């Protein structure tokens, strides 16, 4: 009897510990998933507008130089980045988003708590069944099936043991630890590849904005040198120079590269936490890394491309 009580106590403690482990994960994983969704959305925008940038840059350059627009060249610019290359990245971003969402789902699953109550109920049922079975008459003259019933209750107890064992082996905390550790390499590689792409696209944006800034200044200077310069026209052109200067300045901090770096660091911190003994110190480290990621993601969201587009429209 004592042994049975001890088994139930161990099972209950293990379940409680499993539930606590997943609850501890809730905050960092929830934060990681939310910030990832923001960075992924921002990165998608950059990829979706990659060809538009080249196309617009060509048109703007032709306008600044007073040259004709060659439709063939315009089409070539529009196909700078192949549709299948963009699609591969979009798919990778979707999978990265799914990964974050699955982690959050696992961390928030009510399975452990619900199961804890259900397991307790099951244990009481088995105990009661065992008590009832012992009352069965098994001696001579009793139904022979009674002995089989008594034996059957033993089998049920074993089945219960197996269910508990199966449940405990799949407990959410362990699943989270294993998943995060195993996904370290592909997640890190994906983030690295995305970062390189965004950095390259940011360079293309930087040079395009620089050329527009230069063209705006030249237009202003040409007007200022004109005899006589028109004050109203000069005012309009001065506004264009200011807007282009703003755009040029903003571009340096607009790319989500810092957010992608923070995402990589946050995921590495999750990996370290998954491998650790889950002390308050390791928990604090992962929370700090995820908080830093959330801040970087919020900054990337604020620097969303629609703002740039609006500014650009004001110039035209």
């Amino acid at each position, binding site marked *: 009897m004592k042994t049975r009580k001890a088994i139930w106590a161990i099972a209950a403690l293990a379940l409680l510990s499993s539930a606590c482990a997943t609850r501890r994960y809730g905050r960092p994983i929830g934060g990681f998933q939310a910030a990832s969704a923001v960075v992924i959305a921002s990165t998608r925008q950059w990829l979706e507008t990659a060809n538009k940038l080249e196309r617009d840059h060509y048109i703007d350059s032709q306008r600044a130089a007073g040259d004709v627009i060659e439709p063939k060249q315009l089409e070539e610019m529009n196909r700078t980045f192949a549709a299948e*290359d963009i699609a591969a*990245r979009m798919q990778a971003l979707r999978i990265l988003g799914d990964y974050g969402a699955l982690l959050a789902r696992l961390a928030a*699953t009510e399975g452990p708590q619900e199961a804890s109550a259900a397991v307790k109920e*099951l244990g009481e049922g088995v105990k009661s069944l065992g008590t009832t079975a012992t009352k069965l008459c098994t001696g001579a003259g009793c139904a022979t099936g009674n002995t089989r019933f008594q034996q059957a209750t033993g089998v049920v107890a074993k089945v219960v043991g197996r269910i508990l064992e199966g449940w405990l082996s799949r407990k959410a905390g362990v699943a989270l630890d294993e998943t995060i550790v195993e996904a370290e390499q*592909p997640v890190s590689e994906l983030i690295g*590849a995305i970062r390189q792409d965004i*950095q390259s696209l940011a360079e293309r944006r930087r040079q395009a904005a*620089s050329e527009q800034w230069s063209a705006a200044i030249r237009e202003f200077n040409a007007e200022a040198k004109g005899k006589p310069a028109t004050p109203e026209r000069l005012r309009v052109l001065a506004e264009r120079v200011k807007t282009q200067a703003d755009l040029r300045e903003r571009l340096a901090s607009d790319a989500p590269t810092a957010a992608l770096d923070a995402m990589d660091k946050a995921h590495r911190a999750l990996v370290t936490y998954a491998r650790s003994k889950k002390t308050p110190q390791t928990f604090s480290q992962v929370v700090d890394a995820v908080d830093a990621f959330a801040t970087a993601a919020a900054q990337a969201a604020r620097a969303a491309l629609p703002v740039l587009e609006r500014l650009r429209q004001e110039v035209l």
Partner: protein
Amino acid sequence: MPELSKSELVRMLGDVLTELDVLRASPDIDAASLKSLDSLRRKLDKAQRDLVKAMFQENTQQFKDSAAELKQHNDELAQTVDSIERVADTIRSVTKLVGAVEKLVSAVAGA
């Protein structure tokens, strides 16, 4: 001299392009110099675009490989989440079964 990575080269070309733009915006520049600078800029712009395009194409396989590997983890994780969510239901079903067996046993014991 350390070898430049492709990313560093893209960045370096960007720096040169922005410097050219500063020169081209100068009010003192003569028409002939401006024409030469315009031509140089177009060539460097094309070189940077082609380099970025090539890097993009090279990276695509990396994306496919890493995404496929991560998808496999996602599939396994989804199964784990499902199985964990199913465990509570399974235990509840077994509890009902035990209850039914107990009723049966009680009936036999009382008979």
